[in-house]
C-alpha cells in the first residue's frame, strides 16, 4: 500500500513527521480524510483532532486550528499556537499602537501607567472573548 508523507508542525515545535497510510484533519467545513495521491488542497482547520494512521497504529494530535496543505505525496499541517479571534487581535494591535505612542511621548510615569493600562486592556479583551465563547455555546 502506498503511503503519504505527513508533517504536523507548530511555531514552536515539530509535532509529527513521517509516512502514513492516511490522515484525518478537522477542516473548517468538516472532517476530511486524506489518502495518498489526493488532489492539491489548501484548507483552514478548526480546533480538533488530527489522526495519522500508520502501519503501527493511529497517532492522535490535538490542533487548536491552523492550515492544511495537501500535495499528492505530502501533507503539511500547520497548527496554531496562538488563540485567534478578531476581537483579540484587534485589542493587541491597539495595544501595540498605544505602547508606541507612549514610548514616543516618553516619560517614566507615563510608561508605568501604560504597562498597567496594557495589562488591563489585555484582561478586558480576554474577558470579552470568554463571554463571547460562552454565549456561543448556549
Amino acid at each position, binding site marked *: 500500500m502506498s503511503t503519504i508523507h505527513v*508533517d504536523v*508542525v*507548530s*511555531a*514552536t*515545535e*515539530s509535532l509529527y*513527521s513521517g509516512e502514513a497510510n492516511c490522515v484525518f484533519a478537522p*477542516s*473548517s*467545513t468538516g472532517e*476530511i480524510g486524506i489518502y495518498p495521491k489526493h*488532489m*492539491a*488542497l*489548501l*484548507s*483552514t482547520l478548526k480546533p480538533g483532532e488530527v489522526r495519522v494512521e500508520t502501519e503501527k497504529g493511529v497517532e492522535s494530535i490535538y490542533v487548536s486550528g*491552523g*492550515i492544511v*496543505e495537501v*500535495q499528492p505525496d505530502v501533507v*503539511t499541517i*500547520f497548527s*496554531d*499556537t*496562538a*488563540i485567534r479571534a478578531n476581537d483579540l*487581535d*484587534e*485589542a*493587541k*494591535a*491597539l*495595544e*501595540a*499602537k498605544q*505602547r*508606541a505612542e507612549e*514610548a*514616543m511621548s*516618553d516619560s517614566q510615569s507615563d510608561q508605568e501607567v501604560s504597562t498597567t493600562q496594557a495589562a488591563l486592556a489585555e484582561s478586558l479583551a480576554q474577558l470579552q472573548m470568554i463571554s463571547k465563547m460562552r454565549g456561543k455555546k448556549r
Partner: protein
Amino acid sequence: MASGKEIRTQISSIKNTQKITSAMEMVAASKMKKAQDRMLASRPYSEKISRVIGHLAFAHSEYEHPYMKKMGDIKRVGIIVISSDRGLCGGLNTNLFKSVLSKVVEQQDKGLVVDLCTIGKKATAFFKNSGMEIKATTANLGDAPHFDDLLGTIKVMLDSYDKGEIQQLLVAYNKFENTMTQVPTVTQLIPMVPTEADGMDHHWDYIYEPDAEEALNALMVRYIEALVYQGLVENIACEQSSRMIAMKSATDNAGDMVKELELVYNKARQAAITQEISEIVSGAAAV
C-alpha cells in the same frame, strides 16, 4: 605616581567588575543553548510554510492575494525592527541599527517615507532618539517569546498594508550563523519574493476550503507571522551568544588590567621601601 592605596582600590573595583562579567558570561552561555534549541525547534514551521508559499506561487489560482502582487508605485515603506531588550551584548544592536538606518536613508533619498515598528526596548529607544515615527512597539518578550505577543505589532503593519498606506514591508533582525557570527539582515516580507520550486510547471491549482480568499488570507498572515517569529528567536539566540562573547572579552580585559595594575602597585611598594631604607641609612650615617 598614584599611591599604593589608590591602586589597591582600583584593583579591587576591577576585580568586582570582572566577577560580574564572568557571571554574565556563564549565564549567557547556558541561555544560549536554550535559545538555539528554541530557534531550531521553530525552524520546521517557517521552512514548511515557505515551501507552501513556494508551491502557491506556481498554482494557477483564480484569486490573486494582495500580498503576492506588486502594488504599483512604492511611496511608503514599513520596516519591522527586531532588537534585544537589554544591552551589554557587544555591537549586536548597533550593527543592526546601522544597516537599518542606511536602508532608511536609501529609501528617503528615493523620496519614500519610512514607517517603523519596533520589537525590543533597544530599537524603540534608538529610533525614538533618531526622531523617526514608530507605529507600533512590543517589548519585554523575555527569553522564551510567545507567539501571541507578536500578533498585535504585526497586525498593525499588515493593516496599514491592507489599507494601502504602505506598499512594501521589510523585517530587520540579526541572523544567527554560528556562535561567533551574527549577520544583520533586512529582508522583504511583502510583496512576497517568489521562491524556486521544482517540478511545478504543469497547470494545476489547489482546491480551497472554505474558499480561496479565506484560505489564502489565513495562510499569508501565518506566513508573515512565522517569518517575524523566526526572526525574533534567531535574534534572541544572537543576543545570548553575542553577550557571551562580549562578556568573555570583558573578563579577559579586566584580567589584563589587574595584572598591569598589580605590577605598578608592586613597583610603587618597592620604591617606597627602598626610599625608607635609604632614609634610615642616611639618617644613621648622619648621627
